[in-house]
């Protein structure tokens, strides 16, 4: 009984002392999208979108998009300055997306992201993207699409998500790029955003080498890039390819396919004289989703399409690899394979210099397994 009394005494003392770490939800301002730019003098400008919902009786709250800017020597300092401009405590734990200006991305991005990795409350699952030009331009872009009901953070997040679903851009967030950033044998790529007049479009892929952005890949090559990463399948991983020049009607020269299954085999070989060669083979099973030429009844016809697609996609894939080699970005991790399976060779190498010169090829095999509900 005495111990019970002691315990209750102490626990009641605890309760009297109050609550140290409370952060009330209604006393904070939530950053939903953050942008970082380098200024000319080397300082960092932090832009933050803080949506304020306006309470109405009906309950469907409208959102008032507010963008704040602050300049500081480091990312954290600019955040602290931002805090002073906003009435309540600024909190980035529910951040949806981090946008880096192209100039910032071309410098070491880890310097900016360090604050996200270090803070126990930060949102590591936020998406990360590179903006053409300034990040603040993307954040303060007018977007027509339901501007009053969602904040710019949600808008950007959703548009990148749909781009990920379409396999135009690889799926990355702040945490997933981190191990790759540290990896000497692999590089990563991020979505590339362009601010347009009334919208922000996901324009392509920003390719990185180490912690620095080195170039971009646009359009359809983006889908091939994602396919080459070995991603299994996606809801709408679609491609439209030109397969002939014969028809006068332009539209008849094209076929649209949807990738059902995508199997990657990735071989890295080291010859006895330390020559490195890498080869990616993609075996794709596709469904034809559009082919106005019709008549897919015969095996011959289908074979012809398969052949044309194989040829065209192999060419395109090799183009992508060439481009990556030119930019010196090892996005598919040839170096990682070397570290794991050819460690002695790796130790001798200077990978940065070696990579652009390795024999790096790809081949794509397309197999048509379906053609919609008509033939």
């Amino acid at each position, binding site marked *: 009984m005495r111990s019970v009394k002691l315990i209750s005494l102490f*626990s009641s003392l605890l309760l009297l002392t109050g609550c140290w770490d409370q952060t009330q939800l209604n006393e904070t301002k939530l950053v939903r999208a953050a942008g970082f730019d380098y200024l000319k003098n080397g300082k960092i400008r932090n832009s933050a979108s803080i949506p304020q919902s306006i309470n109405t009786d009906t309950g469907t709250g409208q959102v008032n998009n507010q963008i704040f800017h602050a300049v500081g020597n480091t990312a954290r300092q600019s955040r602290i300055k931002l805090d002073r401009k906003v009435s309540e405590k600024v909190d980035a734990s529910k951040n949806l997306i981090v946008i880096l200006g192209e100039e910032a991305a071309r410098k070491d991005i880890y310097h900016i992201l360090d604050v996200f990795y270090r803070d126990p409350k930060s949102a590591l699952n936020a998406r990360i993207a590179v903006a053409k030009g300034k990040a603040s331009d993307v954040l303060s872009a007018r977007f027509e699409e339901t501007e009053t009901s969602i904040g710019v953070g949600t808008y950007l997040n959703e548009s990148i998500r749909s781009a990920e679903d379409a396999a135009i851009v690889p799926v990355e967030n702040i945490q997933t790029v981190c191990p790759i950033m540290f990896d000497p044998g692999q590089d990563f790529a991020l979505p590339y955003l362009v601010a347009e007049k009334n919208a922000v479009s996901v324009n392509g892929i920003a390719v990185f080498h180490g912690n620095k952005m080195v170039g971009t890949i646009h359009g359809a090559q983006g889908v091939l890039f994602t396919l080459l990463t070995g991603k299994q399948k996606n809801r709408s991983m679609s491609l439209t390819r030109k397969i002939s020049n014969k028809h006068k009607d332009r539209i008849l020269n094209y076929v649209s396919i949807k990738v059902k299954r995508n199997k990657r085999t990735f071989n890295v070989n080291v010859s006895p004289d330390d020559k490195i060669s890498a080869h990616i083979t993609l075996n794709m099973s596709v469904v034809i989703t559009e082919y106005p030429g019709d008549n897919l009844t015969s095996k011959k016809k289908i074979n012809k399409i398969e052949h044309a697609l194989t040829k065209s996609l192999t060419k395109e894939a090799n183009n992508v690899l060439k481009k990556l080699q030119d930019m010196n970005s090892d996005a598919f991790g040839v170096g990682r*394979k070397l570290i794991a399976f050819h460690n002695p060779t790796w130790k001798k190498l200077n990978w940065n210099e070696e990579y652009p010169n390795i024999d790096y090829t790809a081949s794509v095999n397309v197999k048509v397994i379906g053609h919609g509900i008509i033939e």
Partner: protein
Amino acid sequence: MNSSHTITHRQLFFVIIQSQIGVGVLSLPYTLFAKAKTDGWISLLLAGLFIQISILAIWKLCEMYPKQTIFDFIPKIVGTKLGVVLNILFVVHLFSVCVIILILYNSIVSKWIFFQTPRLVVILILALTCVYCITCTAREIARFLMLVSPLLLVLFFFVAYAYSDVHLLYAFPVGAAGIKTILSGSSDALISLLGFDTALVFLAYTQGRSNSKLKVISYASLCVTLFYCFVTFTTYIFFNPVEIVIVPEPVLYMLKAFSFKILERTDLIFLSIWIVFVTTSLISYLFFTAKGVQTLFKLKHHKSAAPYVGIICALIASIPGSKLDVQLWSKLIGMSALCCSSLFPIFLLLIAIFRKRKEKGAVST
């Protein structure tokens, strides 16, 4: 020994598991990596093998002196006077283990969720909860430890979720660190596997055949070793080898990035469940300590020792403030715990066997 205080084999199994899994699980991959690099998980397996020897010694001791705790049979082995000294030393060792559990718990909690809450308060809420829990018999403790064991599955699933984004290649090449470093890494691994030594007191309460007791403890520590191995391996293929050096709590960090549709920041949920495991391992160590204090002061019941033990531990644990202090303390106490928990039983067993031989010899002559 009251017959209504006994525990079953199944309960003993979970008691050992719950005592072993504790504070260590969050930072284990990091500490292992510091020495054995990506082969840390191999060190862990080796450590798992080493502790089987200690377990064997503990079991043998308890078989030689059935229904007695270590505090009862130390004086019988080494003589009354030396026995008292050794008992005091052992109780001090147990105190230090409780203290280090509290210190590490506080350092993680204050780093991840309670940034401003005073150290003493964070430590006291755990210590007092445990004090409440140990004011009963071994049987009720065993029941509780078994009750919360399903949470282990939850931890397992959380960690397994990481396989949605792993780079298997990071684990290669296997064995690059060399046997020597792997071996030296296993001493760190041993410290995190400590907790099997609570068998020294819980075995006294276990009923049933002696052989199956050994089996139960061995299986328990095998399960823990495998679980730790799984956790360590997962973090090694989730994080880049260069990255893991700067992430002291890789398991939490890994979960921080995951989000489900209904819940985000899984690390907070994981942390809450992890608290339960810290509590359980502290419960068994505090119980062990209280039993020791009971024997030393010849108390009627360990209940009366419990509050003092808990509060003294909490007060000591709130001394070290900075990160470096915590490191120093954990290094010192870790080493002493290693000696007392895994080596001491072996020595004790050797002395006991030697004595028995001698006695036999004396009788025969």
